[in-house]
């Protein structure tokens, strides 16, 4: 017997709930597309979610499909072009997948038109310096003439976040050097620790291990509430314009899913994210759960879009 399907049906065979008459039958297969290769943050978010989602859908087979390529665009384009029958969904990263459109590139999807099922994670951004750096406060940072910022490449969320922060803090006037091109967020952080640059930025989930080990120090973070002792939010430090800056992972289907199916999917989603067992599991694999229902997620996407569009002139490639 196929090993994979055996395992999955075993997990899915747990407690069939009496599902309402809806458009996704327990005999259907729902596939959630991860637009990256296996092993990354998105991959684990979906794999953890899938079995619980299957249960909430009355036992329908929920599988994870990896469609990597083109920085996530191949998978997301495929999802947005698939049949809106509720059987193909995808996990989307904001602002990552919004950036290409905002930067003026051609994309195969419009985030605002997708059928949003719900938000899983929301990660605020933290502005960091190396632990042995002389920079102690935001003011110190602004005072530096020849600033070097480490970052991942053009089109990445970290670079965009840094450019937006630089714009709000007034750093852009000093013409800082963006040392971009690091392979991943952790590479940029290690580059910071090594001293290639003086400041960087990363989502909370990426930064936490390095804060805990004492290799980096946080100057400030976005969001409404600081998660770290002694670290102010941008709002508290006097820059409220940066509060909405964050990294979100949400689930959506292609545009045009009919209301009945959408409601079914959304309510199944809410069942999962209110399940204590799931939340505990999510926490154990390092997810920063911040669930939001589908309708609110859709509204939030639009306002996020506006937020990033306001900064579109700061988001040109610095190199």
């Amino acid at each position, binding site marked *: 017997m*196929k*090993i*994979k*399907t055996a395992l999955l049906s075993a997990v899915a065979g747990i407690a069939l709930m009496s599902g309402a008459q809806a458009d996704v039958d327990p005999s259907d297969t729902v596939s959630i597309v991860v637009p990256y290769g296996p092993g990354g943050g998105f991959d684990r978010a979906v794999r953890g979610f899938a079995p619980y989602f299957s249960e909430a859908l009355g036992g329908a087979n929920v599988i994870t499909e990896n469609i990597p390529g083109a920085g996530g665009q191949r998978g997301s384009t495929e999802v947005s072009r698939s049949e809106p029958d509720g059987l193909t969904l995808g996990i989307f990263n904001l602002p990552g997948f919004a950036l290409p459109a905002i930067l003026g590139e051609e994309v195969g999807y419009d985030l605002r038109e997708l059928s949003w099922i719900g938000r899983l994670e929301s990660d605020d951004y933290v502005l960091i310096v190396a632990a042995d750096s002389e920079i102690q406060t935001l003011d110190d940072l602004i005072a530096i003439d020849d600033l070097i910022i480490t970052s991942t490449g053009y089109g990445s969320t970290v670079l965009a976040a840094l450019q937006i922060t630089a714009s709000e803090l007034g750093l852009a006037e000093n013409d800082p050097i963006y040392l971009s091109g690091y392979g991943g967020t952790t590479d940029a952080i290690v580059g910071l620790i090594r001293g290639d640059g003086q400041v960087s930025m990363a989502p909370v989930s990426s930064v936490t291990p390095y804060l805990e080990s004492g290799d980096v120090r946080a100057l400030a973070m976005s969001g409404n509430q600081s998660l770290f002792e002694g670290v102010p939010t941008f709002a508290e430090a006097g820059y409220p314009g940066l509060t909405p800056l964050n990294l979100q992972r949400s689930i959506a289907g292609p545009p045009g899913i009919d209301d009945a199916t959408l409601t079914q999917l959304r309510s199944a989603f809410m069942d999962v994210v209110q399940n204590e067992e799931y939340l505990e599991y999510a926490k154990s694999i390092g997810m920063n759960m911040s669930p939001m229902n589908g309708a609110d997620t859709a509204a939030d996407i639009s306002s996020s879009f506006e937020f990033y569009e306001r900064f579109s002139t700061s988001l040109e490639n610095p*190199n």
Partner: protein
Amino acid sequence: MPTSNSLARPTVLVSCFMLMLAITLLYLSQGFGRSSGMFPRFIGWVFVVLTAADVVVQLIAWYQRKLPETTETAITIKQLKSMGWLLGLVVALSIFGFLITIPAYIFTFLTWRAGHDKRRSAFIAIGALVFVWVIFVWLLDYELYAGLLLNNLS
């Protein structure tokens, strides 16, 4: 590393082709911006110089009759035929997918080109199909490409 088995005129032709390629790549690299174009332009120049030197070396060797005179046409025909078999495989895969093409191709190759008897060829062809199926489809749960034909029929 294998010793060379150069053929006279094709060697010079290939060297010229490489030079043309290098010049084209260098030309295309001019269109890239600052960061994106820096390295390609630099390597492009190096590439042009190297391929030009190679053309010169080949021409000198040819002039001095150091290269074998005859292009063995028999070998060239064999080479073209081999490429043909490869191309055929790729085309067949694209249209019919893996599970049909693999046994069909192996069978055809063995009976037609290599002259093995039909029973033996069929045996090997089926054996290969079983191997691929067991490992990729059954064990690893892959969906092997079904080919344009079948994809369009469904």
